[in-house]
Each structure stands twice: as structure tokens, then as C-alpha cells.
């Protein structure tokens, strides 16, 4: 009875980790080559594109996670105030989450079309010139500082405008899921706490910051860690939106500014057949996600009160 599940999980989800490590120690292109020990890891750490992919992924997580969480928590908290049309709002907020990520990315690519996208039309309304969005490799801070004349330090470029467009898509896609989970968390806070606070004369702001937020901390923490892990594993919107074949832009473009870790690994396998090196690069991704997961387990045991 145990055999079918254990066999599948063992062969395709457990063993491959060790196989990946084995592959990463070899010079492996299509066929297995010589044993090179940690040469692939060193090559990765000395490679500019590898670091760029790490920075891109970090930007992706740094933007999508906090923004999605703040917006989702705000909307969930407002929905919780016994509003009318609760069902309607919840249905609309949840729609993006049940939309396939490829179709969603296709629609947002069209919204951000450099020729005549609706995003450019919106910018036009507020008096900003058209942007090339998904084909724009320049950093957001560079563009902002050029546009407003506010000086910036030379080293500060920020994520490319293309990356910003992709993060907006990701935020849109995950909002509904987080709202639903926050609503569950809000519903689990006992009413007596609110009443007690009210009796003691607490104002709305105090109630929110002294009761709602602390009582919600397990939910907030879990969503945060899971979203960060998801951000490091993100693939579909980045792959679909960054590939602009009509201008010859490959996955991770323009100029590699949207090449996140998973896309980087894919490009090693797909374009270059560099299996050994790709496996080594993927090992770094695994270590980051492992560290985040262990951190989550450790903190939930120590700090979060259930």
C-alpha cells in the first residue's frame, strides 16, 4: 500500500537531489564527462551572470513579498469590517489566483506593450512619456532620477523596468490567495479580546496594532516565509513575459535583467546543454530555499504563539 507513493516520491523527488549533487561534480554536457569536484561551483561563484541572477531574484522577492502582504492584509482587514458585498469583493480578489499564470502573463505583456499598451496610455494621462517596459533593461532608480532630476549614487540602479512590470503581474496574481488566508487568520482571533480592549477604552488604531497584528503574527510570518520561498522558485510569469521573440529577446532579457535563478538554470540546460554547471547553480538555489525553510521551522517553534 505504501509502495506506489514511496516509489514515485523516492525516484522523482528525493533521489534526484543526490543525483543532482553527483552531476554537479562532473563536467557534464549531454554526456557525463570527467570528475571535476567543485569546479562548477567555483565557476558559478566567479560568473557575473550567476550573481546577476541572484540579485534579480532578490529584487523580485524584495518587491513582491512586502507589497503583496501589505495590500492583502489591508484589503482583508477592510473586508473583515462587516462590509456589504463581501462575497462579491472576495470573488473578484480571488479571480487572478485561479487564472492560469501563462494566460495572466500574456495579458499583462499586452498591458505593458511597448508600442501601444494600456499602461503607456495610463502614463500619458498623468503626463509621463511612453515606456518600453518589458524591453527596458535600465534600472528603475536610473529612470526615476533621469525623469525627476533627483540625483542618485552611481552604483544604485535598482531592478530594471522590465522586472518591475513582472513584479506587478506577480503581485496581482498572488493577492487573492493571501487575502483568503488572512481572512481565515482574522476570523480566528477571539471576539472577547476585541471587546475587552474596547471596554478598556482602546481606539481603532490601538486595537489594530495591539491586538489584530500580534494575534495575526503566526499567519503573517508563515505567509512571509512561504512567499519568499515562492519568489525564489518563481518561473512562469518571468519566462513568459521576458521572452519577446519579435525583438529577439530571450528568456531573462532584456540584457539578463529579469534572469532569475530558475530561469538561469533553465538557460543552462536548454540553450547550452551545460548540465554539470546547471546542477551546481541549482544547488545554490536549493541551499537558499533550505535555509529559509529551516529558519521558518525554527522560528515557528520558538517565537510564534499558537
Amino acid at each position, binding site marked *: 500500500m505504501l509502495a506506489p507513493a514511496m516509489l514515485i516520491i523516492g525516484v522523482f523527488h528525493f533521489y534526484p537531489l543526490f543525483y543532482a549533487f553527483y552531476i554537479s561534480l562532473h563536467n557534464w554536457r549531454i554526456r557525463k564527462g570527467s570528475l571535476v569536484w567543485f569546479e562548477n561551483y567555483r565557476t558559478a561563484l566567479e560568473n557575473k551572470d550567476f550573481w546577476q541572477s541572484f540579485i534579480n531574484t532578490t529584487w523580485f522577492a524584495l518587491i513582491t513579498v512586502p507589497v503583496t502582504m501589505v495590500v492583502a492584509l489591508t484589503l482583508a482587514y477592510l473586508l473583515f*469590517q462587516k462590509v456589504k458585498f463581501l462575497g462579491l469583493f472576495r470573488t473578484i480578489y480571488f479571480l487572478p489566483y485561479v487564472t492560469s499564470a501563462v494566460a495572466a502573463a*500574456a*495579458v499583462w505583456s499586452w498591458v505593458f506593450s511597448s508600442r501601444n499598451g494600456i499602461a503607456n496610455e495610463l502614463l500619458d494621462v498623468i503626463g509621463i512619456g511612453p515606456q518600453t517596459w518589458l524591453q527596458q533593461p535600465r534600472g528603475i532608480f536610473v529612470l526615476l532620477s533621469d525623469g525627476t532630476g533627483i540625483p542618485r549614487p552611481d552604483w544604485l540602479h535598482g531592478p530594471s523596468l522590465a522586472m518591475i512590470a513582472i513584479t506587478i503581474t506577480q503581485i496581482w496574481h498572488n493577492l487573492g490567495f493571501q487575502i483568503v488566508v488572512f481572512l481565515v487568520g482574522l476570523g480566528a482571533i477571539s471576539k472577547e479580546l476585541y471587546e475587552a480592549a474596547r471596554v478598556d477604552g482602546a481606539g*481603532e488604531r490601538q486595537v489594530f496594532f495591539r491586538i489584530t497584528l500580534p494575534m495575526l503574527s503566526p499567519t503573517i510570518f508563515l505567509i512571509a516565509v512561504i512567499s519568499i520561498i515562492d519568489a525564489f522558485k518563481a518561473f512562469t510569469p518571468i519566462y513568459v513575459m521576458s521572452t519577446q521573440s519579435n525583438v529577439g529577446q530571450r528568456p531573462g532579457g532584456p540584457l539578463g535583467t529579469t534572469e532569475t535563478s530558475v530561469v538561469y538554470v533553465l538557460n543552462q540546460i536548454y540553450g547550452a546543454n551545460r548540465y554539470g554547471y546547471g546542477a551546481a547553480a*541549482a544547488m545554490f538555489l536549493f541551499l537558499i530555499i533550505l535555509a529559509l525553510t529551516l529558519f521558518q521551522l525554527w522560528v515557528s517553534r520558538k517565537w510564534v504563539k499558537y
Partner: protein
Amino acid sequence: MRVGTLRGRPEEIPHAAVADAARRLPFRFRPGRVVIYLVLTVGAIFCAFPFVWMVLSSLMTREEVNAFPPTLWPGEFRWSNYSEAWNSAPFARYFLNTFFIAGVIVVGVAITSLLAAYVFARIDFPGRGAVFAMLLATLMIPFEATLVPNFIMIRNLQIYNTYYALIIPWIASVFSIFLMRQSILSIPEELFEAATLDGCGHVRILRHVVLPLMRGPIAAVSVFSFLASWNSLLWPLIITSSEGIRPIQLGLSVFVHADANEPQLLMAASAFTIAPLLAIYFLAQRQFLEGIASTGLKG
């Protein structure tokens, strides 16, 4: 953050008093409430507008979508875009593939998970705890990190570019086993004792005692494995090479990348790709939301 009036929550005020107040004050302007609805509406517009824009664009002519400034409302609804998009790529084939793959995976996951969960919950064997812990540890291995070995293994097994490769790795799920084990553990012990006294073995207990009580967990697990399989892109992308076995997501992404100059067709294709899932969502919205809530945070 300016948030609304918790103070005004109805359950804190006796019903009679509310009715009384309502009679005396037909309308009371509360700025807090207005702000709440304003923010909620802005959020709703952000969530809904891509759908509206997708549908509007899908009904425009080629000239309208390529016009600058952009056309906001199609002159007349060109429904023929849908049939044109449908015929521009083998979408019928893509859908058939996806329903087949997702269907087999949903049934497969339910069966393998139920069997394994029953063993972990009800049958003691030496090392059970250790095996279960190992199983849970696999949750920490992201599939994205094992792409290379899985790709090489699929090649070595000589199932590259086959349905086997698209299905087999996914017909078992640690998360589903975990969820179902929790549900089985919550079944009262008396039920098992009664069944054992009646002479039932494990197979009959599983069929007649456990299975009828597992509708909820099976539904939740099915929703998730269906969504995951329907949405998967990375795996089909690396292990298929021919159009004939492509699932819809991969088919759509190829179509999107190949035909960037026909946005009206891309939007029509996106619309009919989204439609089945939205239909299921509207029909089974309660199960969807409860599934998310009950299975907690599995994204």
C-alpha cells in the same frame, strides 16, 4: 493606515437598538465606511481590469489593437477572432492533453495518497516514524532545484517527450499524504474497533470506514493537484519536444511567443485558456476557498 470603524460592528449593539436607531436616523454619513469601500473598490478594479481588457482586446480588429493611442472599446465585437485564434494552433489537442494529464494525476494522487496515509496512520511497522519524517523532509527539496537530474533520468528511462514523463512524477504527493493522514488520525478509534470486531481487514476498513469520511480531504487534494497540473509550465517545457503532447499552458506560451504582432488573437487564446478554470471556480467556489483555508498555506 487609516482603517474603518470596528466600533460600529453590529454584533456589539443590541438588535433592538439598531432597529430603533435606523428608524430615527434614515441615513448617517460615516466617513470611515466610505474610505473602506473606496479602498476595496480600487483593489477590485486592479484585480478585475486585466480580465476586462483581455476580453475587450480579444474582440477588436487588427487595426484597432495596433492603433495609437490604443482603442479602448471595439467598434464592433469581432467574435471571429476566437475561431481564428482557436485554429491558429492545435488548441483542441492542447486541451485534450491537459484534461487527460490532469485527470490521471488527480485520480492517481488521490489513490496513492489515501493508501500511504492509511499506512502511516493505522499500521505500525518498525521505523514508521523515521520513514514519515524522511517523507516530510522531501517537502524541503524544491522541484526547481532537481530539474537537471530529472531531465537526465527521463532521457535515460527513454520516456522523453511522452505522456509518461508528463504524468508519472506527479502521481504522488507528500503534501496530500500528510493532509490525508491528519484526517484519518481524527477519525474516532471506536469506528475502527467496531469494524475490527466485525472481522474487517485493512482493505475493508479502508473502503467502508475511512473512504466515506474522506470526501472533504480528497476534494481539497484534488483541487490542488488539478490546479498544479493545469498550471505547470516548466516541466512540460523541458521534457516535451513535439506539439502533439503539449499541454495547454505550454501550447499557449509557444503561441504567445510566436505571434506577438496579433494581440487580439493572443487575448482570445488567453480568454479561452482561462475560461474552463474560471467556470470550475464559479461552480465550486466554496470548495476552492475552503480548500485553501483548510489546507492552510500550501500555495
